[in-house]
């Protein structure tokens, strides 16, 4: 009989009720008594020297309570990068200070250099308009190649625009170079991984409160990781003792990476709340989000694939420039390096891999981890060059990949890019893909499209990602400045219901529904009696939040460990209640029983006994039933997948439409198939958006051209098809207790090359064989130009 609850089932999401009835509680929905409002003065030039800021008029305006400039924060700490990356020569990366408010110079359009606090939001905005800054505009440094050659600098004090020049793995460089020199065939491809704006539908918002009686601060903020935000504010920026700052991240309307980071606005409202002894609220406009949220991607890459004439891979070598923008955001240095370079062996037995990444400062918004973070960039480079190689050697693109796949009996497999893949079966994924997609019928579908004057293309792709971020031991060696464990507390209440406090943060992933499935399965209690508590540092243990497809693999593992401790203690209590030896107690389906007898007590009775410990062996047992576990993963997890899509291209207009899209993923064990499928859908939507529509563009003066939904092409419902998603190919993760790998980013990683591969295939079918690549977004103009070039 199929299960109707617990692991592997799809209960409806309990959090949906409040979202569907308007009862969600997002940061801007929270209003505090006596709150004032912050507004920021932002640079309208990309690069400029601040000569003076005249705030006098603003200070005298109605309702204005305070005005801050960069000078006020000159002595507090900078917002740090979370990873130290060393260059190939061993030199540490350049790490200029990222201040709360720009001081001395403004470095990108939108860079805040002053802030106003007023009684109303409108008064604050009026006062912003009255602040008069004398700023000498300097030439903007926008293009990365130009930046590296330039004698003028985004940060004058470091006298270079290069943050680091990273080699991975440097010891493999000579062998890779030699292998490529002597290879029978080398395919080379230059490509751009287009810059994206995250665009969580809820823009950033932060409201701070300060209690002058206790000295306690509270910050309500749109964060994916409240403890990390608290740590950054306390240990690096404002110096507030951690135990005096409570960070609350209530319902958060999407993050996708952009809400991992600490931003200056959070520090500003905290400082202002203390100064005024009043709550201070700030909510970004969408325009501010475009200008100041950390952007994603923005790589310029040349990749070479060396192989035998039969397609056996010999080496991959990449040279990448990665834009980090004007300041180092918290994950900005790890994203183009260890989240990118370590994946450059893909799913393949290639013996030689070398990756060079130069990170470049420019007068643009900071760039950081976004929805896949480094892994989409790696997959795109690899899978595009492999597709090109297949075409050059007249090999079937699936067969070329299969020929080079790591085989199931080779796991654990040490990849040439330095990771140890624990489990996978990439051939099985393609078997499943071939089973679902009617490849045999493609010719007929293509002929049908051609009858209508359209070209039809078939694109396929495979990917691997490293998720479950991350083993602290390993990342510490690689330069991480934090641990990347997570934590959970399971509190069984006296009446038997359960609160589970988790370090992970749900901003759409469904933790409130999924984590209870795990605990219910283990304890044999109803899912509905289990409540998840997250997003409040005063309630939850110190966890690192949600990103990198880590919630279940890392925090879920902590939930399992804490629940195991609950079972262990409850077993002791049950043994006492049943007057039996602990070793004779069996726990099954929520019942403790003495093996070989009919004596038993229910879990609820044990919980009650724990809190009403009359007749309790106090010398052996503490009262209460509450356990905490921290879980630090032994390795990354390695989800993988095989994707296919079909596109139609209108050769007259260059318009591309996605006719079908199929994603076959191995996420290890699946706890809630409905939610996993939804996560993949969303990722594919993002991937098609990147491939066909989205492009964050600055002009040569550093003005953001794509600064609204009128200029930045967000994918709409009519741009996208229904997707076919399968996750029945399962190789469980070998090193976490649930055998799960993570699914949040897969779609965004696997889909962009699938689409571009299909477009190139379509154009070749129409005789446009000179087109070997089109950069994303593959817009009608680019396709038309490629056809007609």
């Amino acid at each position, binding site marked *: 009989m199929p299960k109707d609850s617990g692991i592997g089932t799809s209960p409806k999401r309990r959090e949906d009720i409040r979202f569907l*009835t308007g009862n969600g509680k997002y940061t801007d929905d929270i209003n505090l008594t006596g709150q004032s409002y912050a507004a920021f003065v932002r640079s309208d030039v990309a690069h400029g020297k601040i000569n003076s800021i005249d705030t006098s008029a603003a200070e005298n305006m109605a309702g204005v309570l305070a005005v801050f400039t960069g000078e006020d924060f000159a002595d507090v700490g900078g917002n740090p990068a979370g990873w130290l990356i060393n260059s190939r020569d061993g030199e540490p990366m350049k790490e200029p200070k990222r201040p709360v408010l720009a001081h001395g110079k403004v470095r990108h359009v939108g860079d805040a250099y002053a802030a106003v606090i007023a009684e109303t939001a409108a008064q604050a905005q009026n006062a912003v308009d009255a602040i008069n800054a004398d700023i000498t505009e300097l030439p903007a440094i926008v293009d990365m190649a130009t930046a590296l050659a330039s004698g003028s600098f985004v940060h004058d004090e470091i006298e270079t625009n290069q943050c680091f020049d990273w080699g991975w793995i440097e010891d493999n460089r000579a062998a890779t170079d030699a292998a490529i020199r002597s290879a029978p065939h080398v395919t080379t491809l230059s490509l751009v991984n287009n810059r994206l704006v995250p665009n969580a539908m809820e823009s950033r918002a932060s409201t701070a409160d300060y209690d002058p009686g206790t000295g306690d601060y509270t910050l309500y903020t749109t964060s994916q990781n409240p403890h990390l935000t608290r740590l950054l504010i306390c240990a690096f920026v404002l110096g507030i003792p951690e135990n005096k700052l409570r960070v609350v991240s209530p319902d958060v309307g999407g993050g996708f990476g952009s809400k991992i980071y600490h931003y200056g606005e959070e520090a500003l409202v905290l400082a202002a709340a203390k100064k005024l002894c009043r709550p201070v609220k700030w909510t970004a406009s969408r325009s501010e989000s475009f200008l100041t949220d950390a952007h994603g991607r923005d790589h310029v890459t040349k990749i070479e694939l060396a192989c035998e004439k039969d397609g056996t891979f010999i080496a991959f070598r990449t040279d990448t420039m990665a834009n980090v923008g004007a300041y180092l955001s918290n994950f900005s240095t790890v994203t183009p390096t260890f989240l990118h370079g370590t994946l450059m062996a893909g799913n393949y037995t290639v013996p030689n891999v070398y990756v060079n990444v130069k990170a470049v400062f420019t007068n643009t918004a900071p760039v950081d981890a976004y929805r896949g973070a480094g892994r989409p960039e790696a997959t795109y480079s690899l899978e595009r060059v492999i597709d090109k190689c297949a075409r050059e050697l007249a090999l079937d693109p699936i067969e070329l990949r299969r020929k080079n796949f790591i085989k199931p009996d080779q796991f654990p497999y040490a990849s040439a890019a330095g990771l140890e893949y624990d489990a996978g079966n990439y051939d099985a994924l393609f078997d499943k893909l071939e089973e679902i997609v009617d490849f045999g019928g493609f010719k007929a579908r293509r002929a049908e499209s051609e009858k209508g004057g359209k070209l039809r293309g078939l694109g396929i792709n495979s990917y691997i990602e490293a998720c479950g971020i991350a083993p602290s031991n390993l990342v510490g060696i690689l330069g991480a400045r934090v641990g990347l464990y997570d934590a959970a507390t399971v509190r069984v209440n006296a009446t038997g219901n359960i609160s589970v406090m988790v370090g992970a943060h749900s901003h759409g992933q469904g933790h409130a529904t999924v984590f209870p499935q795990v605990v219910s399965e283990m304890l044999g209690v109803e899912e509905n009696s289990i409540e998840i508590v997250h997003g409040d540092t005063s309630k939850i243990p110190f966890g690192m939040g949600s990103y990198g497809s880590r919630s279940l693999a890392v925090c879920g593992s902590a939930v399992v460990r804490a629940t195991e401790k609950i079972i262990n203690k409850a077993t002791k209590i049950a043994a006492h209640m049943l007057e039996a030896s602990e070793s004779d107690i069996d726990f099954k389906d929520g019942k403790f029983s003495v093996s070989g007898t009919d004596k038993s007590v229910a879990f609820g009775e044990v919980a009650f006994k724990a809190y009403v410990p009359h007749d309790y062996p106090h010398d052996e047992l503490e009262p209460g039933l509450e356990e905490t576990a921290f879980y630090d993963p032994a390795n990354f997890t390695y989800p993988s997948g095989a994707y296919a899509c079909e596109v139609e291209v209108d050769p007259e207009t260059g318009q591309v439409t996605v006719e079908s899209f199929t994603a076959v993923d191995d996420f290890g064990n699946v706890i809630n198939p409905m939610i996993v499928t939804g996560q993949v859908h969303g990722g594919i939507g993002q991937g098609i958006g990147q491939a066909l529509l989205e492009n964050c563009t600055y002009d040569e003066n550093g003005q953001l051209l794509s600064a609204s939904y009128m200029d930045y092409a967000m994918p709409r*419902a009519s741009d996208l098809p229904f997707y076919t998603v399968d996750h029945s190919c399962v190789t469980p993760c070998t090193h976490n207790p649930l055998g799960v790998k993570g699914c949040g980013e897969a779609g965004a990683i696997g889909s962009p090359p699938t689409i571009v591969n299909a477009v190139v295939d379509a154009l070749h079918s129409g005789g446009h064989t000179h087109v070997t690549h089109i950069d994303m977004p593959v817009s009608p103009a680019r396709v038309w130009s490629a056809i007609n070039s």
Partner: protein
Amino acid sequence: MQNISMTINGKPVSGDVEGRTLLVEFLRNDLHLTGTHVGCDTSQCGACAIHVNGIIVKSCTMFAADADGALVDTIEGQANADGSLNKIQQAFQDHHGLQCGFCTPGMVMAAADLLKNNPTPTEAEVRHHLDGNICRCTGYHNIIKAIMAASGQDVSAIAAE
């Protein structure tokens, strides 16, 4: 300041607003009806969609004063009288048509508008109708499926889960 009155979700309300106060600001800030969201400042995203006199409106695009005397419906008034989810809301839950929930109120209001005027829309019609509503989480698949299911159509052939 101008005193305005309107009927919201069947209840009479009134308040004093500036001429520049947007209807969404009046709903959120004055009436604390925070289910209507603001996702942009250019009337593109649809998170603030409500019904005014039975017509779908982006409430960031209308001054509160212009709604004086109007009948206004927001997400807070969509559930059945007994508090249970209405047909569209229930379909969104049944088909996992929401993730972070931020665009959801606008999606539900847009879906209600569609189904009122076109009780059994095709997939293409649903997608076209949602061009003014942006979702960043779901890739729209389950939103389309939910709306078609709410219209009474059989969606079992649309991919699993």
